[in-house]
């Protein structure tokens, strides 16, 4: 076998790889589109009118996640299942974003942190690596960190919308999250970088809570809102 023949063989392997990547890219693009739609839908809660129909928005978002599940199911078929990490970079970003959206959705519904299993379930994928297309732990944690910054924004906006109870709930939630992240020994990677931003979210929410409590707005919610009027 001559040298050039060998290179021809290697080249065909490389271009086959590239074809797979292109296929994945196409599916990931549709996933990004759906993710944007869900985001726009859920962003509605930041507006004053949006606070009233959170459950309706959540229901709609849940419907969109059905589309996500079908897209992810097609993504699974685009590459050999044991080569997840070979192409991981291509869907990493969109998966983190989808985890964030799922976590946001679950938080809006019942103010709890979505578990890794539940997040995987919402996305229609596995939570363990051994079972196939799964949710990587770092992607899950990144999504959760995005949730923290979204909630700090929500705390501010809910005060504007005169929902004084919500910031307190968010503060308790984020505190717990912060405590949880402190348990982790993170390496100096992208996850660590995002974690470093968490303290600003914690600070922001604490400021909001402080502002509320110093004005007595957090004590008795119903009477204070009546007084204001």
């Amino acid at each position: 076998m001559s040298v050039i023949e060998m290179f021809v063989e290697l080249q065909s392997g490389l271009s086959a790889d590239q074809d797979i990547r292109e296929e994945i890219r196409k599916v990931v693009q549709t996933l990004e589109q759906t993710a944007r739609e869900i985001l726009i839908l859920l962003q509605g809660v930041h507006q004053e009118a949006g606070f009233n129909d959170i459950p309706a928005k959540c229901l709609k978002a849940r419907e969109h996640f059905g589309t996500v599940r079908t897209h992810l199911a097609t993504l699974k078929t685009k590459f050999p299942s044991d080569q997840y990490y070979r192409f991981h970079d291509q869907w990493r970003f969109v998966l983190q974003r989808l985890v964030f959206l799922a976590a946001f959705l679950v938080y809006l519904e019942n103010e709890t942190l979505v578990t890794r299993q539940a997040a995987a379930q919402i996305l229609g994928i596995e939570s363990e690596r051994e079972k196939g297309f799964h949710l990587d732990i770092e992607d899950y944690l990144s999504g959760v960190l995005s949730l923290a910054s979204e909630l700090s924004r929500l705390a501010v906006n809910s005060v504007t919308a005169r929902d004084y109870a919500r910031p307190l709930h968010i503060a308790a939630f984020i505190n717990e999250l912060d405590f949880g992240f402190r348990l982790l020994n993170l390496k100096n990677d992208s996850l660590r970088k995002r974690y470093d931003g968490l303290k600003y979210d914690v600070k922001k929410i604490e400021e909001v809570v402080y502002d509320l409590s110093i004005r007595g707005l957090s004590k008795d919610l119903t009477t204070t809102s009546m007084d204001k009027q």
Partner: protein
Amino acid sequence: MSEKEEKASGGFKKRKHENFPRSQRKEEKGNCVDSSSPVILAFKSFQQELDAKHDKYERLVKLGRDITIESKRTIFILHRVISDLNKDEILNESDTKLDVIRQKIKQVAQELVGEDLYQYHRAFTPGLQEYVEAVTFQHFIKTRTLFRLEDINKQLIFEEPINDVATTVNNSPDHSLGGAEKKPNVLSLQVTPVDYLLGVADLTGELMRYCIGSVGNGDIDTPFELSQFLREIFDGFSYIGNTGPYEISRKLYALKQSLAKVENACYTLKVRGSEIPKHMLADLFSAKTDIIEHDEGIS
């Protein structure tokens, strides 16, 4: 100075004191942050999972470094081949070195049992490339041909007749896996095509050095063989072009330079070789390469 320091440390203590009640208060406030809440329990399991992953990664990085160092040493040994006299001796020495490296690669394979190769690939890919470089260089000196990827991979299949390796080197999960199979335990680590190509691209640099060195030793035939061989490899890489990853196109540039150097060397040998007495060739040649290197430094 000392006073100042004391002040500074005092201030630090003070600040610490201030901090203390605040953190306490925080825990009181968020009294839901007890260590048995589901969120905290989940994070505790994440901690374990992440730590295990990072530890494995670090072990692989260490093995990868060892592989790199030993491979580099093997290449240095191989550069000592001067004539047929010491060739066999040096080839034997390099063989034993490469066996040591293969043992290290086996350890990498053991770490990766039941794991996704690509998840940890970045930890040891430089080591593998260096190994490819060493092993192909040795093969070239032996047979004057390019060692094929399949043959490299064949050497990296390790059979374990007894399953005691898992107990000595690895932790319990791998052990249980090895025990469950109960067959002759086959471990393997496959070099990926990209690793192979990058290793071969590095090989060309070594071949260029080998070429210059062999002229110095009065070996007139080797440069011509080398230039032929390098040209084939260069054609191969040109064929791949930019279909491969970015690193390959970058190496192509260095490859071009190496090839130019060797071709120039052959040219000089042909043109001037007949005019100059053999014993002076080496001097002439080393002067010539100096100029080339100098030029490159400027550009």
